[in-house]
């Protein structure tokens, strides 16, 4: 099955256009990852409108390459400036920056890039072999199980995220409510359209996401100040010899990648948890744990291989089950839907060539990451000198034109602005943004399967309890919510039980 998809996808992916766009996406991802305050999510959001104009596999290849490049790019600024370009690289600076201070910045960047590429490739192997198996299992799921799965996807993201669970759930529900705007899928009724013809199809997901993440981020960046600040950074060239160091640490690469894949596949966990966990594990099993934090290359290997392996892990439930693990994969999933392919078991059944093309794009992106990451390090270091006052208007304009390009609609621009305001308020008061996107993406799947289940059972809600898999998944969701929402003293019985 895995090889069949790769063979089927080869025809779609191995075209000069798709290869070039994957390479370009990787380069763009690296640039965006290097710049503090941006990151793979922002890159994917800004370039999604462009991807919609491309052949599906080429467009998705570009976005996936941005994901891969963006996840690795943050290491450059972490090593050179002690400022992680993305949260994913926060653990990398623990040893990367001390290495740079000792004059070993080229080696640290070389290790970070090569470990990221190797971790990403291992993640790719798991993606290629695990996702068809998972999709095969999911084929046996009926509407109740699917309904329960979508709920679990949303709940796990809000429960694991660092913000309050109730706030996360509220935001997720708002996302789901937004997804109900427009024509109802079952009855011929318009919902929440307020007689506005522009609302008949609901809000454009890209306009929402760009507003929520990009516009609110730009506003906060201006508010934060330091627009004229220029980083003093030494332009360095990554060392090719560092690859040898990474390869010699193959046990660390494999172990950290497995941790990354696990946390990637777990909805809500993501690369930050993966990289800190792999760092902690690497330190715990090391013969010289006292050298960690003082410039030990093994620390950089652990964090970077984990956070890029996480990309492959995240794509497993996204492609196989249509359950995105985080906001980035939710946007990727949204883009895949917009280009006409719905993730989930049917994608593996009916569009095996597209699945194969995506797998190949992911693998190729990691190969490009390795080559381009090492070759263009001096450029990335120079990019760190760009002042925010020059960058912010460009990102804003790209947001406007990108959103306008999708439907040629100025209404979408107002939607983007409104969601920008919402994103700003949510960030100010510690409401997570990711559940809104995931709620909006999962909403239609959740409602569709909820109502289909009830149609199957003649409106008997017992169907959700009678079916063991569905009941188990729902019980896990309920338990996860209860454990995080209820005050600690209410759970005293549970703790007493554990102690006994």
């Amino acid at each position, binding site marked *: 099955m895995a090889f069949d998809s790769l063979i089927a996808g080869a025809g779609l992916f191995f075209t000069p256009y798709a290869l070039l766009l994957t390479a370009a996406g990787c380069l763009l991802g690296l640039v965006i990852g290097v710049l503090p305050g941006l990151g793979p999510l922002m890159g994917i959001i800004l370039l999604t409108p462009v991807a919609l*104009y491309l052949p599906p596999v080429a467009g998705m290849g570009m976005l996936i390459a941005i994901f891969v490049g963006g996840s690795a790019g943050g290491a450059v600024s972490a090593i050179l400036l002690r400022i992680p370009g993305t949260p994913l690289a926060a653990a990398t600076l623990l040893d990367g920056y001390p290495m740079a201070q000792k004059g070993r910045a080229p080696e640290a960047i070389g290790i970070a890039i090569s470990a990221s590429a190797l971790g990403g490739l291992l993640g790719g192997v798991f993606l290629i072999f695990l996702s068809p198996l998972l999709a095969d299992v999911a084929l046996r799921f009926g509407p109740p199980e699917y309904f329960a799965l979508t709920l679990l996807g949303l709940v796990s993201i809000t429960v694991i995220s660092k913000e309050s669970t109730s706030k996360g759930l509220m935001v997720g529900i708002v996302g789901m409510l937004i997804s109900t705007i427009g024509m109802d899928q079952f*009855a011929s*009724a318009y919902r929440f359209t307020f007689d506005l013809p522009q609302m008949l199809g609901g809000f454009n997901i890209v306009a929402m996401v760009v507003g929520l993440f990009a516009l609110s981020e730009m506003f906060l960046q201006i508010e*934060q100040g330091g627009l004229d600040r220029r980083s003093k950074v030494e332009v360095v060239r990554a060392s090719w010899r560092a690859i040898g160091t990474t390869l010699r640490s193959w046990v660390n690469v494999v172990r950290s990648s497995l941790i990354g894949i696990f946390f990637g596949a777990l909805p809500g966990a993501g690369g930050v948890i993966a990289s800190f966990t792999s760092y902690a594990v690497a330190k715990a099993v090391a013969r010289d744990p006292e050298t960690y934090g003082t410039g030990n290359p093994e620390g950089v290997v652990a964090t970077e291989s984990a956070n890029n392996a996480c990309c492959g892990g995240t794509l497993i439930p996204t492609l196989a089950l249509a359950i995105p693990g985080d906001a980035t994969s939710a946007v990727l999933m949204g883009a895949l839907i917009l280009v006409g392919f719905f993730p989930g078991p049917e994608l593996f059944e009916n569009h095996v060539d597209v699945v194969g093309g995506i797998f190949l794009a992911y693998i190729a992106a990691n190969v490009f990451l390795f080559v381009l990451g090492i070759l263009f390090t001096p450029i990335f270091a120079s990019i760190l000198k760009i002042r925010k006052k020059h960058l912010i208007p460009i990102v804003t304009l790209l947001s406007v*034109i990108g959103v306008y390009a999708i439907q040629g609609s*100025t209404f979408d621009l107002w939607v983007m602005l409104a969601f920008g305001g919402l994103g700003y308020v949510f960030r100010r*008061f510690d409401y997570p943004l990711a559940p809104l996107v995931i709620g909006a993406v999962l909403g239609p799947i*959740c409602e569709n399967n909820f109502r289909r289940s*009830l149609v199957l059972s*003649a409106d008997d809600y017992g169907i959700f309890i009678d079916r063991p898999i569905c009941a188990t998944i729902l019980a896990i969701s309920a338990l996860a919510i209860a454990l995080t929402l209820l005050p600690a003293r209410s759970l005293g019985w549970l703790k007493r039980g554990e102690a006994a």
Partner: protein
Amino acid sequence: MADKDTRRRRVGEAGVVLGFLALAGLVFQQTRTSFVEQGAASGGAMYNAALFPELLGWSLLLLAAIQVFRLLRPGGQPAADPPQLAGVAAPEDTGDRRSLRQALVCLALFVVYLLLLRPVGYHLATPVFMAACYYVLGTRNIVVALLLAIATSLAMSFVFEYWMNVILPVGRFGIGF
């Protein structure tokens, strides 16, 4: 000062929760009026378009009630953590009036730009908007701001109009590639 900040934050939190409550209220208002008029607010799951939104509305009400309880309980002050900028860094000087003024001016410029984009067209509105933004954000040399604005507007139009065949707003003057 800290008390004032906490109070301001508490008021803000309460405002956000009120927003959620208002949204839930809007859901119920719609399902009991517009949905009823369309005959889509009752019956089985197949015909009841209000079923799922109402379920979400009730859930939102419940969670908002939990938030209200947390806000009102003695000592239950909201987390005063600074907002996360994409999880990267917390703002160092969000209270800085100059930065806030810059952000608000940029927002106002953005609104004006959106209003003018269709009637004036991309090729006239964008360079002006971009130059104004560059100026407000600190590029005080007007010539440099204008050159940067024209360059970025043209580069963006090349990508979208020339490469992707997107028709950007031409405005009343019909300017486009």
